[in-house]
C-alpha cells in the first residue's frame, strides 16, 4: 500500500513541474513589457528600469525561471498591484470559503447522482431511467452561472426562502472564531446554532448550483458502470445462488461499479473548480475565484497567476488522492505495486 502511494506521488511530480513551467510562461507572455506592466501606468522610464532590475527581468529566461521557482518554494506568489497585499496571504484567507462551497457541492452531487444512476441501471427503460437520461443531458447543457441565477430568482425573489446572494454570512452576523475556516464546522465548534443555520442558509444555493452542474457526469457514469457490472458473470452467479436482490446490488455490484465512477471524479473536479469561479461571481462568494475575477478585470496579473497555480496544484493533489482511493477500493492495484 505504502509503495503504491509513493509510486503515485512520484507520478504527480512531472504534472507539478509542467504546471509551474506553464504559469511561468504565462507571465512572460504578457502583452508588451512586463517591467512596464508591473511598474504601473504612471511610471517613468527610470522607474521601469528599476522594476526590471528588481524583478530580475534583465536576466536570461532560465535564470528568471530559477528565481521564480525559488520564490515559489518560499511561498511567495508576488503582490497584488491594486491592494499591495501579498497574493499568498490573500489566497490563504480566501481558500476555505471556496473549499467549503466546492466540497458541499460535490457531496450533494454524489448523494443524488449515485442512487439515481443505480436506480436507472437496475431498471433500464423505466421512468427512472428516462429521468436519469433527461437529468444527465440537461445537466451538461446548463451554464452553471445561469442555473445559479435561476435559483436566486426562484428561492430569493419569488419564494423568499433563501437570503440575498451576498457572500458567506448576513451582515448581522460575525464569522465564528477560525479553526478550520469552514463556517459550518467552526460555528459548531463554537456551539453557535444560530450562526450555523445562518451560514448554512447562505451556502445552500451556491452549493446546489455546483451540485446540479456536477451531477450529470457522475450519474451517467454510475448508470453505465452499474449496467456493465449487473450483466457480468459474477452477478449472475450471485443471483443464481439465491442471494437477495439487495445483497447482489449493494454488496456485489455496487463495489465493483464504483471504480469507473471514482475515475470520473477527476474530470468532475476539473469542471467543479472551474465552475466554482462562476458560482462565486453569481453569489458574491468571497473565495479565491472571485478574487481572481476581480484581479482579471483590473488587469492585475499576479493574483491571477497565483490563483491559476493554486488551482492547478490542488487539482494535481486531488487526482493523486483519487488514485490512492482507487488503490484502496481495488485490491488488485495494491498487489501490482
Amino acid at each position, binding site marked *: 500500500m505504502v509503495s503504491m502511494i509513493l509510486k503515485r506521488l512520484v507520478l504527480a511530480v512531472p504534472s507539478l513541474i509542467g504546471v509551474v513551467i506553464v504559469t511561468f510562461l504565462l507571465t512572460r*507572455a504578457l*502583452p508588451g513589457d512586463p517591467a512596464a506592466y508591473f511598474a504601473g501606468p504612471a511610471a517613468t522610464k527610470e522607474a521601469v528600469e528599476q522594476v526590471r532590475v528588481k524583478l530580475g527581468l534583465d536576466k536570461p529566461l532560465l535564470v528568471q525561471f530559477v528565481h521564480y521557482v525559488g520564490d515559489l518554494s518560499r511561498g511567495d506568489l508576488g503582490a497584488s498591484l491594486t491592494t499591495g497585499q501579498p497574493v499568498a496571504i490573500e489566497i490563504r484567507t480566501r481558500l476555505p470559503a471556496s473549499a467549503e462551497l466546492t466540497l458541499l457541492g460535490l457531496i450533494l452531487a454524489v448523494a443524488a447522482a449515485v442512487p439515481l444512476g443505480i436506480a436507472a441501471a437496475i431498471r433500464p427503460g423505466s421512468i427512472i431511467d428516462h429521468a436519469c437520461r433527461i437529468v444527465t443531458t440537461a445537466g451538461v447543457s446548463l*451554464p452553471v452561472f445561469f442555473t445559479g441565477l435561476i435559483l436566486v430568482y426562484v428561492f430569493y*425573489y419569488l419564494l423568499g426562502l433563501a437570503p440575498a446572494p451576498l457572500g458567506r454570512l448576513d451582515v448581522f452576523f460575525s464569522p465564528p472564531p477560525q479553526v478550520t475556516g469552514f463556517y459550518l464546522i467552526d460555528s459548531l465548534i463554537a456551539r453557535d446554532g444560530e450562526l450555523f443555520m445562518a451560514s448554512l442558509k447562505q451556502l445552500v444555493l451556491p452549493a446546489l448550483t455546483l451540485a446540479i452542474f456536477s451531477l450529470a457526469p457522475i450519474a451517467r457514469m454510475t448508470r453505465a458502470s452499474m449496467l456493465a457490472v449487473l450483466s457480468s458473470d459474477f452477478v449472475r452467479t450471485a443471483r443464481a445462488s439465491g442471494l437477495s436482490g439487495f445483497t447482489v446490488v449493494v454488496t456485489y455490484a455496487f463495489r465493483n461499479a464504483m471504480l469507473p465512477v471514482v475515475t470520473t471524479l477527476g474530470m468532475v473536479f476539473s*469542471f467543479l473548480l472551474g465552475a466554482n469561479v462562476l458560482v462565486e461571481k453569481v453569489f458574491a462568494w468571497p473565495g479565491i475565484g472571485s478574487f481572481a475575477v476581480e484581479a482579471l478585470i483590473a488587469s492585475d496579473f499576479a493574483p491571477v497567476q497565483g490563483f*491559476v497555480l493554486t488551482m492547478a496544484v490542488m487539482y494535481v493533489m486531488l487526482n493523486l488522492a483519487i488514485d490512492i482511493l482507487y488503490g484502496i477500493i481495488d485490491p488488485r492495484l495494491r498487489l501490482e505495486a
Partner: protein
Amino acid sequence: MSELALPKGGEPRATGLGAAAQHVRYVLRENAVTGFAFALFVMIVLAAVLGPYLVPYDPLASDTAAALKGPSLAHWFGTDQLGRDVLSRVIVATRLDFFIAIASVALVFLMGGIAGVAAGFFGGWTDRIVGRIADTIMAFPLFVLAMGIVAALGNSVQNIILATAIVNFPLYARVARAEANVRRDAGFVLAARLCGNGEARILLAQVLPNIMPIMVVQMSLTMGYAILNAAGLSFIGLGVRPPTAEWGIMVADGSTFMVSGEWWIAFFPGAALMLAVFCFNLLGDGLRDIVDPQRRT
C-alpha cells in the same frame, strides 16, 4: 478500411447529393431526438446567418423611456436597463457565439488532429512530446487555465477562441492518436508505402481521411463545451466587451436585476445559450451512435 468513413446505413448508396439526403433521412429515422436536435441546429444556423436582418429592433439602440419593461407584444423578451430589445440582442448574439465556437473547434481540430495523428503514426519522440503537452494541459482545471491564458495574452475575442482551443487540445490529440495508432500498420498503409509514398504523404492522404468520422463526432461533442467555455469567460468580463450582444455578457448584465425581479434580461440569453449547448450535445451523441455505436452509454 475505407468503409470506416461511410455511414453504416445498410441501404444501397447513392452518390453526391442523393447520398447526403439519404444519410440525413437515416439519421432522423434512427433517433427522433437527433432529428429534433438537427432542426434546432438549422434554426441556430439561420439565426447566425440571417440574424441582423430578422430582428425587429436595432440591438444596440437604447430607449431609456422603455427601460426594464417585461415581455410584451412590442418587446417579446422585454427590454434591458438601457431599453434595448432583448429579443433582438439574443438573436443577433447567435452569430458571435456560434462564430467563437466554430472557430475554436476548427482551430483545435487542426492543432489536436494533426499533432495526435503524427503522435500515433510516428510514435517515439513525437508521441512523447505530444503526450507530455497534453498531460500538462490536463493537469489544470480547464476553465481556470482558459482564464489564465486570456489574462496573459490579452482580453480579446481572438484570445478566447485560442484559449478554448488550447484547453480542448488533449481531447482531440488523444482521440486522433489512438485512431492513428491502430492504423499505422494497416494493409492500406503498407500498400501505400509499398507504392513508394513518403511517410508525410501517407499520413495526410491515407491515415487522416480514415479517422475523419471519429474526429467529426469529437467536434460536435465538444462544440457545446466550447460555447459554454466562451460564454463563461465573457460572463466574468473577459473577451467580448459591452455593448456587443453576446449571450454570456448579457446574462452577466442581467444578473444584477435577478434579485430585484427583472428576470427576463438574464433569462432569455441564458435560455438561448442552454438550448444551443443542448442541441450540440444531442447532435454529437446522435452522430456518435451512428459512427461508433459501441461507445454508446
